[in-house]
């Protein structure tokens, strides 16, 4: 039977027996979900890819310890990925740049969930691996708020931002795909982020850190700050 036709349990048994094809099949089956879970926590493609690699390495090295009667393989892998991601968030919070940003004027200092999220050190609510109900609800609400904010952005700007941020397209690739001048891609992407910040600051409140914009309090001002009020398409 081809690896792709085998169950997770059969493929793990194959791993234990030294079957490298089984590892490839399990990668194809679970890599996207692992990457997404890590990216949701870390917000960084490179670091999410590192977590994916560490998770697959753990699967290879510790396949014997997986117990199908305790959890599905997907849940087991996502737990590993979540733990690796949280390790990175904690390390990030200890780095000098985090201290630097945390000490910046206007930065939030209270202990709301959003502030901890901004600080980058305690965010667990968006983890895919069974967070507690309160955190899960908060994460779900946050994700919904962001999606609503994105939906409120003009479509061309939203499209540019989503292609860049979520789908890893470079500005040149976006320009080629959508037939826009490169300058238009840059302007629309930056403007989308500016609008998003304004909307989210209104939705989430003043203590999120999103409104730390000393010279910027509106989308128009942000457009001026980042290269002019036009969208660069003319």
């Amino acid at each position: 039977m081809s690896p792709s036709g085998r169950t997770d349990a059969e493929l793990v048994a194959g791993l234990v027996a030294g079957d490298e094809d089984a590892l490839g099949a399990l990668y194809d089956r679970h890599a996207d979900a692992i990457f997404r879970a890590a990216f949701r926590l870390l917000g960084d493609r490179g670091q999410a890819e590192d977590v994916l690699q560490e998770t697959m390495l753990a699967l290879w090295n510790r396949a014997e310890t997986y117990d199908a009667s305790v959890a599905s393989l997907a849940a087991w892998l996502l737990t590993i990925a979540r733990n690796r991601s949280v390790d990175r968030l904690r390390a990030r919070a200890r780095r000098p740049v985090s201290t630097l940003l945390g000490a910046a004027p206007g930065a939030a200092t209270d202990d709301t969930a959003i502030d901890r999220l901004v600080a980058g050190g305690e965010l667990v609510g968006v983890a895919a691996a069974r967070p507690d109900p309160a955190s899960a609800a908060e994460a779900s609400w946050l994700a919904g708020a962001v999606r609503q904010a994105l939906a409120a952005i003009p479509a061309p700007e939203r499209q540019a931002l989503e292609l860049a941020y979520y789908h890893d397209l470079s500005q040149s690739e976006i320009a080629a795909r959508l037939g826009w001048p490169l300058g238009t891609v840059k302007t629309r992407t930056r403007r989308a982020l500016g609008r998003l910040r304004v909307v989210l600051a209104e939705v989430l409140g003043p203590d999120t850190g999103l409104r730390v914009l000393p010279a910027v309090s509106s989308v128009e001002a942000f457009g001026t700050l980042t290269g002019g009020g036009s969208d660069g398409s003319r």
Partner: protein
Amino acid sequence: MDHVEVRQWLTDALAGGILPSVLDDLAAPPGAGGAAADPAAEEVRAHLTACDACRAEAGALVATGVLLAAATPDDVLAPVAARERILRSIHETGMVRVPAASRPPVGAPAPAAPLAGARPTDPARRRWRLVPALASVAMAAVIVGGLVMVGNMSHQRDVAQAEVAALGELASASGHILARPDHGQVPLVGADGTSMGMVVFSPSSGQVAVWSRDLAGMASGTRYDCFLVRGSSLTLIGWMDDAGDVAYWIGQAPAGLTLGHAGDRIVVQADAPGAAPVLSGTF
């Protein structure tokens, strides 16, 4: 760079989904890491160091990125190019797994034990290398970490990989035994009474594991045999092998011998004429 340029640079990094890594690079000392390779990044670092307003702006961008990431849609996929790189990396640095056809599975019954005092002659008889489960995990981590450092020292890497493989098997086997509700432990002591190893076993499953870190001569290839002593009967149950600084064996108790019988002893001695026991433990 002025304020506008710095903020555009950071905004582009956020839009590309790489802002955290970029900030990590900026946190590195000047002249070290990724920031040094990019003159623009070095300019941004210098600007942020001196500019409170732009640091605040960077913090706001970080917050925006955290929220954007939390809303990652379900159609986001792992980078296509990552597959080959990750699988190749695991092949190079992961533990060595021996194809099933060349070794028995964990928990498989051992071949019939020889008669008391006889030497096993079957070269295919299974031998497992053992250390305590927790210690094995820690050691494996150290060795895997070490693999990264040895670089092109392929011989050392091969040796380390072999040990990692053995330790991985050991972790699993020990875990199986220790998970049995009736498992037991017997300390092994040297001739002077010093603690030198351990036996873990399960009477119901017959699985037994023996290990020691203190057997002299293992590096030279000396073989150490494990015997179960009951009364005046001496039964060979297996032999230990060396792997780095740990000698271990795991297998199955001989048929008809229930482990854990009060007064039974485990003894370990070199496979040499007239050799005296170097380790012993009493159930």
